[in-house]
């Protein structure tokens, strides 16, 4: 029996998730917004891996799931950044606040 309980990992993940979310919702730099989202996905992964070890009928599935998540997250980061670069090329800004021409 491990001396570190499941909930410790879960709380860590929750904290990371919250920080990621906070970053995604408040940071002005678009790159940071994207990377905050990655942080949230990391929190998910941590959850999955923790559950894989300590969860009900613990199994390797959680780890597999997290691998998929990581892969997809990477893809998402790439696409997000590509979009950002295209945007930057046209607008010369990465400030999220200035991306508000679409509203009416």
């Amino acid at each position, binding site marked *: 029996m491990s001396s570190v309980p499941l909930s410790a990992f879960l709380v860590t993940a929750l904290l990371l998730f919250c920080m990621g979310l906070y970053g995604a919702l408040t940071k002005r730099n678009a790159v940071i917004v994207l990377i905050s989202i990655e*942080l949230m996905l*990391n929190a998910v992964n941590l959850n999955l891996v923790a559950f894989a070890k300590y969860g009900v009928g613990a199994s390797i599935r959680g780890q597999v799931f997290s691998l998929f998540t990581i892969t997809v997250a990477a893809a998402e*980061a790439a696409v997000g950044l590509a979009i950002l670069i295209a945007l930057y090329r046209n607008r010369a800004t990465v400030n999220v606040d200035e991306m508000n021409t679409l509203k009416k």
Partner: protein
Amino acid sequence: MTGELLVFIILFLVTITGGLLMLNLTKVIHMVMALVLTFLGIAGLYIMLSAEFVAVVQILIYSGAITIIMLFGIMLTKHTEAEPKTGWAKKGVVFTGIVLFFLIMFKGIRTISLGPQAETLHENNTEQIGIMLFTDYVIPFELVSVVLLVALVGAVVLAKKDEEDEKEGEQS
């Protein structure tokens, strides 16, 4: 205090510090670097959770690939620019919401215990994953390749500078 717990606390602190630094630093580059810390901390936690393979992948992809991509992103855009300040009101709303969310979830997981831990995870961890991937999860595995293809194509299409570079109309 067992050694395991000590390791956990250190990793926990590394992880959270990285996150907090990311949120509070002003320079964009520094933020990304702070996050590397977090990613590494998480990798450490994975090892604690008998997920060696995932930990390695984590270091490779996050601390490696994604961070590099992001740094490229920052370099390609205005990298010197410091993060502008966000209005307090907005921050306040977001912060309150997140605190509430945290509290609600925290209560649910604070004392959670779901049964005995899996003992065999660390044995041939990579093999187990491999077997799983090629039995149950063949379809998503293959599908992920399509996802990556799409990401590849997308990134190329979007980020590449067109030769003809004809500016389309501003209107949709």
